């Protein structure tokens, strides 16, 4: 046991010594690993930031109930009561026409085109969010029912907005998957290459060690340590790159978002996420190293 610990301590010590001795080569390798890891990580953070914003937006099918300009408070109250009781309805909100105009202005982006309006042309309305488990037929029935109420001008079943958002997010997630797969492949290859290079520089040592009685484990050990250290530092560097990029991007993003009336900033990675990234890069490195050493050792008895 003591012996085993000594062997491991020696291997680790030599790994670090080798890194310090050839800082350029090792540094460059680390940089490549970090860059390859930074991309999927950064894109993941971007996507999760956007997803957090969109989570606040309605994703369930929505029904807009436009009231006649002449609709009185009794009629409005009646509709309100109906909606409050209906079990297909998750939530109903009354939007007065002044509020609706403000919303529209915000959406259009400025008061350019609406500035020419002399009076508010919009009607009062109810925005009804239905339960997400309600069937399409049930919603249609609800729509017909509401359209028949006095004071109601028109009823619109609107799920286009939600569908679009869903589609956008799905696209982003698909892209993330592609990027993650591509860069995971690249990362595995790069780390495997780095280890293969170390093996090449030490092939004579491996041969001699094998000939004079070294076990496979003894030969593998320093490479595994090198891979682990490389993966860990590479992962940390990747986080560093991402955080720097976010710091640099965030003011611009925030300013841009606020111009569109949104409060939005890209999430900085938390300790858990940083840990996960380092874990993944380390594991990938270890797998790459194990494979590279295995491929090389096969040649010797």
């Amino acid at each position: 046991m003591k012996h085993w610990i000594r062997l491991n301590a020696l291997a680790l010590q030599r790994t670090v010594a080798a890194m310090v001795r050839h800082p350029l080569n090792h540094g460059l390798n680390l940089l490549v690993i970090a860059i390859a890891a930074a991309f999927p990580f950064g894109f993941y953070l971007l996507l999760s930031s956007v997803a957090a914003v969109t989570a606040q937006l309605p994703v369930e099918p929505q029904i807009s109930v436009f009231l006649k300009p002449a609709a009185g408070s009794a009629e409005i109250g009646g509709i309100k009561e109906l909606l409050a009781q209906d079990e297909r309805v998750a939530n109903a909100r009354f939007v007065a026409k002044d509020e609706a105009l403000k919303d529209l202005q915000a959406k259009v982006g400025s008061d350019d085109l609406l500035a020419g309006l002399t009076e508010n042309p919009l009607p009062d309305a109810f925005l009804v969010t239905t339960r997400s488990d309600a069937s399409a037929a049930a919603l249609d029935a609800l729509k017909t029912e509401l359209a028949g109420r006095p004071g109601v001008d028109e009823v619109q079943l609107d799920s286009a907005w939600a569908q679009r958002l869903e589609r956008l997010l799905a696209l982003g997630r698909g892209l993330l998957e592609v990027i993650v797969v591509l860069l995971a492949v690249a990362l595995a290859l790069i780390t495997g290459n780095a280890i293969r290079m170390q093996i090449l520089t030490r092939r004579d040592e491996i041969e001699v060690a094998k000939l004079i009685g070294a076990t496979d484990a003894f030969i593998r050990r320093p490479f595994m340590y090198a891979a682990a250290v490389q993966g860990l530092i590479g992962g940390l560097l990747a986080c560093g790159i991402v955080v720097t990029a976010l710091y640099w991007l965030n003011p611009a993003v925030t300013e841009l978002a606020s111009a569109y009336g949104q409060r939005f900033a890209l999430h900085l990675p938390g300790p858990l996420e940083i840990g996960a990234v380092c874990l993944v890069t380390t594991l990938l490195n270890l797998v790459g190293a194990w494979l590279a050493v295995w491929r090389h050792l096969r040649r010797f008895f």
Partner: protein
Amino acid sequence: MIQFQQVSKRYPGGFDAVKNLSFEIQTGELVFLAGHSGAGKSTLLKLIAGIEKPSSGAVLVNNQNVSRLGRKALPYVRRHLGLIFQDHKILYDRSVYDNVRLPLDIVGFDGREVKRRVLAALDKVGLSGKEKLNPVALSGGEQQRLCIARAVVHRPAILLADEPTANLDRDYAHDILELFKSFHQVGVTLVISAHDETLMADYGRRILRLKHGEFTA
């Protein structure tokens, strides 16, 4: 200690380097291996160390069939051997000292013991004072002595030396053979190949003479 039972070795190309050899080397013996270039001397030594597997027959070392040992077991057998390779196999990316300590690291000796043994081995072959040099800074003969130091540093029970005096002048060759004799005296089994029979004659031990893979009288 070492036993060959009708061992033949056919290399992939179809060449028979060793043909149906049977012999035994007792514990503590000093045996010379003589023969022309290409006679099969190196092949025979490699068979003992398990570096080559026989095509037929069995090679027993310490009553273990070396050719049947798996990846896991072979290293532990090799640790009882000291190998001097004909092509040296010196590592040029580290000092003389670190070359010699390699067998000790593999076994896992501790620091002080490593230092003591390495310096003692270098002293025995006349390389003390050169331990910090890189092996490229050694002359051909000095490199050969470095190989000898590496082969004996972990005090193996069996020493297999493939032309250990090829690059040495007569004086050094005799020094090295004296060194081998001293190992012999403390009970190490030695198999030494050489093409220079005059050296062997001086020591008057058992000589195995190979010719085209077979023994001659």
